[in-house]
């Protein structure tokens, strides 16, 4: 048995040994910590530094100002207006529902608005502003500003919203902007697209020129804390505002043209500069208010626009395809001349033409008698064209038509353009797998049957005739910032100048010589006269039975079955500068409905030019910049010929 002392010593020995073990374990643990520290701070240090910076710095985009779209005079057609909105920061507001109740007298809110605001406040951080109402009126803004001391947490924020001062008049080519869709985001990597509230061009030129109008994103580097609260701004880059796009459009004329079409249920008109191809006016009625789209359109309104049978959202100038009717005769006639027909050769019109046992009728029941080419164009005699087209053949006519821009897209900078159709034997064989019937040539020569064209194609065709055979292409964009986009020269079309001259003279006769189908719509102001060609295209078949009992008058038919009224024109006659095409859907006769519209538009345009030229000679005045300056009161707004059309309306 060990003594107490020995036992104590033994116990102490064990303890000392075990203390060493314990100490060793602690030392090992501390070494492990040191190693871990080395691993985290030195080996992985860079990675964690990056992560820490990602935590700390929040990169926020600054939306650049969208570029303006102006007309050829510099009048803004699309601009950015200040948009006032009321925002509330809940942490500064204290009692939110009390503030909202106080605001009720200034800014009436529906139960729905109230719920939306309360939901937004609950979802966002207390320091994040919540939008109470957008698009405040100036009265509302001032009422809120006055009461601000009683409304803690409330503030007025200024944003930008796209505005179209001419509204409906420019909607069809400007298009509109709208919220970014998922499809937009998938197509582009521009970080701006993910910015809340950012708007991109959705249609028309806003869409076409979106990349230049949009500008480049600016950015601000913000230091944020873990809750996203901004501590300070580290750096700021304002970005680059969008470019200004200058159009060939003349705002005043555009406004006038849209107004002039307004009485018609569904109509389109387009005016080109024959030398440049620049579109001076492009009107399609009915139209829509693009401002509603820019602010966010209601689904009911959109639904009603989509369902309207007059298609307010369709730009009929480029997307409406019509049988050109007798306006096509100028191309047929040119083709006859180019293919060796003598203009002086006469054809006798008895009102009827026989081909292979089938009767082909002239629009004038009793016939025109003996017609040479000029007379046939003036009177729009169908029989003359039946005979001559039979001699020349459809392929030759089609070839001429194509050279003047028919049957193919004009490549204008707008989406949704239709190509029209110029038929020939080859086309029919390929597309319909059928042989061409000689009778179809007769129908095509007067712009019926398979032939289809858009109003823009008709205007381009007229311009190419009027400019001496240069293949202009229609366009709306004159320049982006300082860069001119219009080509200075256009390629020449292979055509005999004398033949062209003859066609233009004949068109002048249509309007200005007694017996011409559009005589009543002539421009009487000396030096401003126009030349043109009427057209009336059937949209229904006239049966043999109906023809025997008398063709029904348009006004006796339902609107959808009435004829389209067309007119093509150029002016002035002595030195053509502008070409115009007008189509009034189901409007009746080209001479009575379409021609007066073309006359008013072309006269207005020439008067505008003259007025500007005289101003330019005077000491310079400040330019008329307000949109309201565009004259809404045309000098002859009323249709020129309200009289009922004669029992055989000229085509």
């Amino acid at each position, binding site marked *: 048995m060990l003594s107490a002392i020995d036992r104590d010593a033994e116990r102490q020995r064990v*303890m000392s040994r*075990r203390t060493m073990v314990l*100490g060793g374990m602690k030392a090992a*643990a501390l070494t492990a910590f040191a190693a871990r*520290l080395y691993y985290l701070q030195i080996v992985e*240090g860079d990675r964690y530094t990056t*992560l*820490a910076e990602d935590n700390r710095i929040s990169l926020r985009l600054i939306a650049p100002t969208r570029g303006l779209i102006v007309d050829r005079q510099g009048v803004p057609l699309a601009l950015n207006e200040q948009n006032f909105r009321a925002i509330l920061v809940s942490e500064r507001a204290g009692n939110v529902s009390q503030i909202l109740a106080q605001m009720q007298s200034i800014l009436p809110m529906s139960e729905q608005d109230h719920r939306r605001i309360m939901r937004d406040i609950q979802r966002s951080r207390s320091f994040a502003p919540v939008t109470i109402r957008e698009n405040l009126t100036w009265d509302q803004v001032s009422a809120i500003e006055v009461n601000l001391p009683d409304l803690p947490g409330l503030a007025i924020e200024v944003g930008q919203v796209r505005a179209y001062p001419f509204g409906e008049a420019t909607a069809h080519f400007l298009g509109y902007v709208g919220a970014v869709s998922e499809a937009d985001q998938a197509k582009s990597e521009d970080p701006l697209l993910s910015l809340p509230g950012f708007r991109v061009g959705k249609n028309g030129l806003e869409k076409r020129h979106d990349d230049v109008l949009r500008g480049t994103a600016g950015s601000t580097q913000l230091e944020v804390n873990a809750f996203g609260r901004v501590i300070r701004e580290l750096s700021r880059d304002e970005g680059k505002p969008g470019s200004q796009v200058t159009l060939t459009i003349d705002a005043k004329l555009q406004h006038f043209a849209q107004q002039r079409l307004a009485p018609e249920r569904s109509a389109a008109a387009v005016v080109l500069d024959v030398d440049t191809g620049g579109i001076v006016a492009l009107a399609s009625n009915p139209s829509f208010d693009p401002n509603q789209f820019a602010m966010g359109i209601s689904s009911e309104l959109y639904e009603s626009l989509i369902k309207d049978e007059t298609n307010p959202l369709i730009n009929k100038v480029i997307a409406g395809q019509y049988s050109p009717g007798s306006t096509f005769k100028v191309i047929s006639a040119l083709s006859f001349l180019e293919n060796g027909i003598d203009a002086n050769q006469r054809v006798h019109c008895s009102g009827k033409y026989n081909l292979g046992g089938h009767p082909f009728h002239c629009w004038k029941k009793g016939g025109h008698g003996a017609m040479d080419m000029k007379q046939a164009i003036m009177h729009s005699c169908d029989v003359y064209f039946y005979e001559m087209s039979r001699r020349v053949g459809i392929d030759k006519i089609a070839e001429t038509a194509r050279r003047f821009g028919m049957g193919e897209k004009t490549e204008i900078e707008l989406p949704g353009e239709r190509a029209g159709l110029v038929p020939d034997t080859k086309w029919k064989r390929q597309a319909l797998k059928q042989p061409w019937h000689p009778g179809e040539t007769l129908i095509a020569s007067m712009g019926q049957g398979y032939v289809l064209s858009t109003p823009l194609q008709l205007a381009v065709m007229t311009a190419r005739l009027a400019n001496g055979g240069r293949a202009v292409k229609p366009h709306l964009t004159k320049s982006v910032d300082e860069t001119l986009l219009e080509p200075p020269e256009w390629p020449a079309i292979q055509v005999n100048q004398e033949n062209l001259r003859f066609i233009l003279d004949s068109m002048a006769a249509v309007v200005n010589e007694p017996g011409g189908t559009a005589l009543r719509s002539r421009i009487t102001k000396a030096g401003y006269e126009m030349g043109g060609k009427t057209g009336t295209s059937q949209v229904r078949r006239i049966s043999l039975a109906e023809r025997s009992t008398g063709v029904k008058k348009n006004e006796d038919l339902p609107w959808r079955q009435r004829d389209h009224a067309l007119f093509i024109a150029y002016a002035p006659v002595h030195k053509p500068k502008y070409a115009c095409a007008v189509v009034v859907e189901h409007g009746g006769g080209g001479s009575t409905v379409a021609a007066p519209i073309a006359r008013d538009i072309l006269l207005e345009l020439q008067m505008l030019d003259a007025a500007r030229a005289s101003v330019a000679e005077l000491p310079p005045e400040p330019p008329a910049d307000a949109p309201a300056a565009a004259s809404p009161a045309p000098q002859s707004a009323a249709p020129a010929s309200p009289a009922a059309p004669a029992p055989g309306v000229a085509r």
Partner: protein
Amino acid sequence: MNFDLGGDQSDMTLGEKFAAISWSLVFLIAAVASVGFAMLYSAANGSLDPWASRQMVRFAVGCGLMLVVALIDIRVWMKVAYVLYGIVFLMLIAVELVGQIGMGAQRWIDLGFMQIQPSELMKVTLILVLARYFHGASLEDTGRIPFLLPALALTFAPVALVLMQPNLGTSLILIMVSGATFWLVGVRLWKFLTIIGSLFPIGFIAWEFMHEYQRNRVRTFLDPENDPLGHGYHIMQSKIALGSGGLFGKGFLMGSQSHLNFLPEKQTDFIFTMLAEEFGMVGGLGFMMLYALLLVYGYVIAMRCRHQFGRLVAMGLTVNLFLYMFINIGMVMGLMPVVGIPLPLISYGGTATLTVMIGFGLLLSVHVHRDVRMSRRGISDF
């Protein structure tokens, strides 16, 4: 070091005792605490309010308490060990009762002027009571299982109460401190292995009784990056803060992770992270060495003590201090689960500071009374 066994210290005057206090250890404690003040100052974005100033007051009070504890004769502490243990045990029961009446996990008793966590105090009293129990035990005694059973009961009774609070971290510390004492008095290794082996089925049962948040902590520890915005968020952000500190750190008051609030609980559990973010690896290692020096003092005091009670108390306190540091730093480095253990002397918090200061007081008392005569029975000479 002087291992002179000296004479009888039983009749030291108060002045002699005061002079015998290891002032270098007191100075070291103050130095570590000062690092804590600096970090709390930084955690408040360069302000004494709300943490640093209050922590200084607590430390000052704690220092006073420490010196009082140090000057009380070690034999008195031995005498009252069971009584203190009993009082704290009753407090634990009281907390449990109050907690059942109140909502959720209740860990403290509100004394009006301050809140006391009995589980923190239990760490000290458990060390005292086990030292008292084993003071006279020979190797033969500690070899007999029946002799060990009361000590096991002394350990697991409070552990069960603390687990019920529920406070997993403190429970584990209590078990480990107790385990260290058992180890030091010579309990054979196979007995530990038996206990540890039996803990596995207990662990499974405990898992069944765990709160969901405790289970999530364990799950998060096993795969912290799996759930970056949930429970793993704290550890991820802590590692980012540590790692981005680099070799020399971002500079005092410049820790972006801490000051922008990406780092959670930066003034309490994650304060070491902030230190390592602002002072880098150099600062982190320097701090750990300072802390290790405290442990070395504990060892030296234990080894120079001539009675078993003092040795066991000093070793127990040292182990306790080490465990705090081990769990806390291991946690913020992503080596341990998030168990909510503060870093003593550095972290902001009342009871933890107080407990640690009482612990240092006892350590100093052991040092001052290292040579007192004590019988096997402990109090006969007194």
